[in-house]
């Protein structure tokens, strides 16, 4: 006879779970009681949102399912932002929440919330478990849906009496999904149509999103694009999928994308989208998005098609099947000569003006920081100006080397997510890049970093503002800096010291000298090589802006740049 809690943990182990993040509380106590003997390493975060983001970081870094555990009521509601983030960015996440005992459900009991109901719109699948007998099937199904197709978050809500109950346990089971008429299978009948589109295209381009990474199709995609040699750009989640030194690669596209990428996307007559959902930060004004283009959209999730603009050729299926199928077909034809188009799209005159204005020292700092990183390093960026600067300067060809909250844009993501990444990759240099606003949203996770002695490198780009909001206020709200002033920030180095983490400041004046002087270079080298967690606060000009920028509602061709 096993308790429900023991059955849950055995089923988690059967699904390959070795690491879980969480925060205990009343209703989930039976699970925590059984945890020490489970073979699962549990990481105590200091807030359930930290647990969800850390589990996401682990999942994003490895492709495995992340697991977050919380108690009922506030514990579960604190997971919600992480669940929404995982939904937007297709991250496989299993959240296990305690619930008040069955007899109390619906009575507004202490720490009771309808977690199942409140996460319905945010999850791919969820269950409120009503009996101990359901547990093996529910856990198996939860993991199946979290990792299958387009990955996403699931919630398993377990009443405390189910966790305490005992039953015979025959062992974990394997979930067998019901066949569905619309189940997606790799389909290769699209190739003829796409080749016809390609043969007639004068200005073809490729847009790369996270889908190729999630599908494990990065190598296939690189091979295909190296063969086609067409101008290529990436979404923020697609960064790293294409080697940045590829002669046809134009960098990031979208609101803060490169001039070359945005212009090529605006001018193209054939847009091939590989695993991107065409978020509005990528498209700009949807009615003027790729106005001359026919669109071929490689995508595993049909619900992502036609959201912004109807595509001409939906290629539904796993990219690990559809990309090789297309590559195999395209190699049998004679490709048109796109040399001239490539020369225009990738030409030097398409590079954006060098002027970075007040942001120049910060950009130079990020360049110098990234220059010192080993190739397999991982940057975990928070949300805001620093995120876009980091994305613009990211120069790695490591497919899972740039991790951020892209779809939801959840400030506070980076620090806990970086914890998950560092635990997944203990021998990899992991750099958490945050702003001063976002860092304070989950600053309590410094305690987790210290307890685990993670060699995490934390960078705060401190402009003493909610910088991205301030930038919009400057540009679009007549400099009315309403409630974005953070000039009374704490001394982050002192805060880190209180957590017994070493911290240091670097003023932007140190980055004025070109090339960067040896003292600064040495400081960054030592910072990155330290075996201990460390914090580096870079003091950034309060009114530095991110450019290029496509204003909201503008077309991608209507970028604005820093003025000299």
């Amino acid at each position, binding site marked *: 006879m096993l308790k429900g809690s023991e059955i849950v943990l055995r089923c988690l182990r059967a699904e390959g779970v070795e690491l879980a993040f969480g925060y205990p509380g009343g209703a989930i106590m039976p699970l925590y009681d059984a945890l020490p003997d489970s073979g699962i390493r549990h990481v105590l975060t200091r807030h359930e949102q930290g647990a969800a983001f850390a589990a996401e970081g682990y999942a994003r870094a490895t492709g495995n399912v992340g697991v977050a555990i919380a108690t009922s009521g506030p514990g579960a509601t604190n997971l919600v932002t992480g669940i929404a983030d995982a939904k937007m960015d297709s991250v496989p996440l299993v959240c296990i929440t305690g619930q008040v005992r069955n007899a109390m459900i619906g009575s507004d009991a202490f720490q009771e919330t309808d977690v*199942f*109901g409140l996460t*319905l*719109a945010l999850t*791919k*699948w*969820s*269950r*409120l478990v009503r009996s101990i007998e359901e547990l093996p099937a529910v856990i198996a199904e939860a993991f199946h*849906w979290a990792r299958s197709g*387009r990955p996403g978050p699931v919630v398993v809500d377990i009443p405390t009496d189910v966790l305490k109950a005992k039953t015979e346990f025959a062992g974990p089971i394997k979930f067998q999904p*019901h066949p*569905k*008429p*619309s189940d*997606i*299978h790799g*389909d290769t*009948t*699209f190739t003829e149509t796409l080749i016809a589109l390609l043969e007639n295209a004068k200005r073809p381009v490729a847009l790369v999103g996270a889908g190729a990474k999630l599908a494990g199709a990065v190598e296939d995609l690189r091979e295909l694009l190296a063969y086609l040699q067409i101008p290529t750009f990436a979404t923020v989640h697609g960064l790293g999928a294409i080697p940045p030194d590829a002669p046809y690669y134009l960098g990031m596209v979208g609101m803060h994308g490169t001039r070359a990428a945005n212009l090529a996307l605006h001018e193209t007559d054939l847009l091939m989208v590989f695993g991107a959902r065409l978020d509005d930060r990528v498209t700009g004004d949807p009615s003027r998005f790729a106005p001359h283009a026919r669109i071929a959209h490689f995508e595993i*999730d*049909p*619900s*992502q*098609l*036609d*959201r912004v603009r*109807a*595509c*001409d050729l*939906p*290629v*539904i*299926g796993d990219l690990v099947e559809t990309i090789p199928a297309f590559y195999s077909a395209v190699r049998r034809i004679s490709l048109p000569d796109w040399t001239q188009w490539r020369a225009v799209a990738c030409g030097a005159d398409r590079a954006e003006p060098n002027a970075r204005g007040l942001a120049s020292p910060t950009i130079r700092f990020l360049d110098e920081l990234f220059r010192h990183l080993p190739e397999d390093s991982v940057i975990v960026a928070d949300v805001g100006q620093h995120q876009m600067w980091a994305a613009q300067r990211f120069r790695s060809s490591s497919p899972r080397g740039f991790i951020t909250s892209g779809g939801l844009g959840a400030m506070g993501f980076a620090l806990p997510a970086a914890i998950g990444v560092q635990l997944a990759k203990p021998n990899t240099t992991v750099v958490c890049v945050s702003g001063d606003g976002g860092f304070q949203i989950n600053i309590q996770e410094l305690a987790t970093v210290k307890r685990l002695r993670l060699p995490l490198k934390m960078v705060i780009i401190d402009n003493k503002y909610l910088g991205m909001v301030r930038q919009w206020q400057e540009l679009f709200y007549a400099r009315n800096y309403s409630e974005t002033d953070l000039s009374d920030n704490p001394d982050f180095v002192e805060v880190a010291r209180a957590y017994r983490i070493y911290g240091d400041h670097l003023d932007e004046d140190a980055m004025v000298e070109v090339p960067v002087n040896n003292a600064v270079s040495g400081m960054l080298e030592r910072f990155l090589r330290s075996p201990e967690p460390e914090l580096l606060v870079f003091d950034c000009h309060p009114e530095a802006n991110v450019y290029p920028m496509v204003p909201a509602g503008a077309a991608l061709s209507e970028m604005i740049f820093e003025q000299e």
Partner: protein
Amino acid sequence: MQAFHIQYRNTQGTLMRILNAASRRGLEMPYVQATPVDHEHAVTLLLEVSPKQIGQLCRDWNAIVDVTRVRAGVPFTVATHAASEWTTPHLPASVRVAANAATGASA
């Protein structure tokens, strides 16, 4: 008004997920009828939607784990070419669905 018919396994929350696809878009639901159909359930909705939303909704419903069939237009029990069913790997773009649905499914 556009009629939609969604067949689903009546598991926890599936009907709510189906309705949520409409409610998250702020759509009024003047008519909702859910009934058992063989071993499954089906819900019929009447919604005031734009052609673009028809495609979006059908794809959202199809992405729900326990939804088995989605049709914009006449019910499953009526065999007709005028309805758009989402059963093939290569789902058509919304423009094609919208055109079909508009001719055969106005309610």
